[in-house]
């Protein structure tokens, strides 16, 4: 139940990697795992079904079949489709028009509306706005006090009338108060309610009609299950939503609810709530959320970066050289520099499931640091072109010169040359279709 999708997919793809082409049943096997991962992440089953269908169609197309790495291509399609569904608009809040711009926060009980209201106030203030919090939750005991306390914490004013007036009246008077006192945005915190509670939903409709908000944001918990779709749909149909704030993203919920809500209602995800501390809301990045929903670490980012940086023509050229045993220190340097373009070595290894545990160990950092990386670069750069192309000519006196030139010891030069020889051996293996174990050793 708890194994990550990455492991399972790697299992499926390990077999696929050795094949040049993907059959329909290969794709179906992989997509079964994807569907399961989506369901475990609480993605609505209909949304999951449609999603898998789209990925399947694309995966069986010619572009994938002719690619060098069909398995990775399938993963990439999964990722692209997820990102496309989640949408890529930045979380922007509309406060144009009336002053103060009325913003409403709505949602189920316990979704985190009040906390999100305070966080949103903080976010808006950072954007140069002057937000007023309006306490319209007159139902839950002490909800007004909660908002007042949070307002004090962040130094934002709270308009409240206790629980004596109706939420509709408080909202109206709150807006007026905001207008009279120079606030630019009024954040209306409403009571939590069930989407099927007609009376309570009617109240929201009434508030909305009177204050004409520029934004109606649904606050939903990342842990929400299959019901997320009904909740969002009902709120959207009855009140009309302009955005979504997904809370409790600091936990381990995969947040499939976001995908469902977006797919079914089209309402954009605007912000993420990441904890109880009142700090600004987090921007939402569709790619990161996509990976989280799949439970995949940053594997996809790595694949994308690799694809961007190593163009396939060059990769093929390298592969040919490898096959003929012509891989030189010059090529090694190029490869290293390409890897460097992707970020620090440990950050790359961090993205690879399984290896990321390794990078957290102190002895690893001592051995495979980015410093080490630089040193190797310096050694190779101290060689002549002939030496780089034909390492076998490097004799004792050349070694001493290279060591002096790069500021290392002769032993270190020896070490690199030994490693390079080993690597050439490994590369030959790889060119026969086997992935070498332990990328770290190769680079060390």
């Amino acid at each position, binding site marked *: *139940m*708890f194994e990550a999708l990455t492991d399972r997919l790697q299992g499926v793809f390990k077999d696929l990697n050795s094949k040049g082409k993907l059959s329909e049943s290969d794709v179906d096997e992989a997509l079964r795992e994807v569907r*399961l991962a989506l*369901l*475990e*992440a*609480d993605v*609505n*089953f209909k949304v999951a*079904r449609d999603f898998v269908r789209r990925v399947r169609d694309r995966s069986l197309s010619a572009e994938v079949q002719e690619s060098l790495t069909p398995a990775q291509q399938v993963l990439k399609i999964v990722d692209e489709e997820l990102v496309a569904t989640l949408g890529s608009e930045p979380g922007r809040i509309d406060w144009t028009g009336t002053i103060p711009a009325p913003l409403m926060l709505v949602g*189920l*009980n*316990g*979704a*985190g509306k009040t906390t999100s209201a305070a966080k949103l106030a903080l976010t808006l203030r950072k954007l140069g706005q002057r937000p007023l919090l309006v306490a319209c939750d007159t*139902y*839950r*005991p*002490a*909800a007004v*006090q*909660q*908002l*007042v*306390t*949070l307002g004090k*914490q962040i130094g934002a004013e709270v308009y409240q009338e206790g*629980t004596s007036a109706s939420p509709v009246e408080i909202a109206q008077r709150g807006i007026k108060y905001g207008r009279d006192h120079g606030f630019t945005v009024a954040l209306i915190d409403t009571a939590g309610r*069930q*989407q*099927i*509670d007609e009376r309570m939903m009617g109240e929201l409709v009434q508030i909305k009609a009177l204050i004409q908000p520029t934004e109606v944001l649904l606050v939903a*918990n*990342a*842990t*929400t*299950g*299959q*019901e*997320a779709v*009904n*909740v969002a749909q009902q709120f959207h149909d009855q009140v009309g939503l302009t955005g979504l704030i997904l809370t*409790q993203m*600091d*936990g*381990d*919920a*995969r947040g*499939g*609810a976001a995908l469902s809500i977006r797919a079914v209602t089209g309402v954009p995800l605007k912000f993420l709530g990441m904890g*109880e501390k009142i700090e600004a809301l987090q921007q939402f990045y569709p790619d990161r959320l996509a990976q989280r929903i799949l439970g995949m670490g940053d594997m996809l980012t790595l694949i994308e970066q690799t694809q961007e940086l190593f163009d396939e023509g060059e990769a093929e050229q390298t592969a040919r050289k490898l096959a003929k045993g012509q891989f030189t220190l010059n090529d090694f340097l190029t490869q290293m520099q390409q890897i460097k373009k992707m970020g620090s070595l440990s950050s790359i290894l961090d993205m690879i499931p399984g290896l990321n545990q390794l990078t957290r160990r102190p002895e690893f950092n001592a051995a495979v640091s980015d410093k080490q990386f630089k040193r190797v670069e310096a050694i190779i750069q101290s060689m002549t072109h002939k030496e780089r192309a034909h390492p076998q000519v490097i004799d004792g006196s050349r070694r001493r010169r290279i060591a002096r030139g790069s500021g290392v010891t002769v032993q270190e030069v020896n070490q690199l040359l030994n490693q390079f020889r080993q690597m050439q051996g490994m590369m030959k293996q790889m060119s026969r279709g086997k992935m070498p174990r332990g990328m770290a050793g190769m680079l060390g």
Partner: protein
Amino acid sequence: MVFNLFKRSQPKETAATPAAPSELAQAQAVAAPGEPVEPDVPVLVRERGSEAGKNIAQSLERTRGGIFGAVRSMFQQRPELNEAFWDELEERLIQADLGAHTTADLVDELRSRHAKRRFDSADDAQMALRDSMIALLGNERPSLNLPEPMAVVLVIGVNGVGKTTSIAKLAHLLTGLGRKPLLVAGDTFRAAAIDQLKIWGERTRTPVVAQSPGSDPGAVVFDGLQAATSRGMDTVIIDTAGRLHTKTNLMEELRKVRRIIDRQVPGAPHETLLVLDAVTGQNGLMQAKTFAESVGVTGLILSKLDSSAKGGVVFSIAQELKLPIKFIGTGEQLQDFAPFDPQAFSGALFK
């Protein structure tokens, strides 16, 4: 002493017409220490087979009508029990938040049974599914271990699941059963959490022990247990701050609270109840697993089971973790709370 929730300890015949929750104005109605609790609180819990079953059925009406209605109607259409049928059944169970794994187990069992010896009718298949689901939840009706003279109940859960409201409802229910509960405001972190519990204390006429916001929860618990002893209260219900199960420091704080309770009342807490929001999906399983591993959980309270929420995650939890569900909460009123009866629950879903 094990407290059977389905028996009333007092021969009170008050019908299920609940007294309106007392308002803020009735602040003075907070029971003074040692003062006998007013016995006019209606007793909701009845002998099984009468009101209790009916109430659960009523509160589950929407669940019945919604997702499980869809499951039932599948069987009622007298379908052919073929692959397409099983696939659709799977999807509908997943939609009820049973989770992919529990669903697969349930449907695979039906499939293979049908392959071996065909079900005579769709009704038979439905009964078989019902029986497997009841088997998952167990047949036992819940009980609370509330020993004399002092029982301690610790209530825990992630943020926003309804801990404080559930505590108020539990206090209300136990008062009706003749217990003398005292509430401890152990959530010193969230803004106004203490005020919230105090208001519920007023409404339920239950004394509340609290300190100021930001104080050490361990210290409040210590005070609460002492106060309960000196005031002659027999049940202490401790509210705690909502915490994500992934926050190790907050889980450690909870273990510390537990140690303090145990030092004051050896063997306590007698019940550690995890509150789970019925709208939660598969993360509920992670919540239950982590809380159970790090602080120990004796049972679950499934909250917010009104709405069309399904709470199907309880089947996954029952299957994976074998944790009993002790109560269900179905609304915002004090009396919207009942002991969980697995048979009535599963039965209601298929009625």
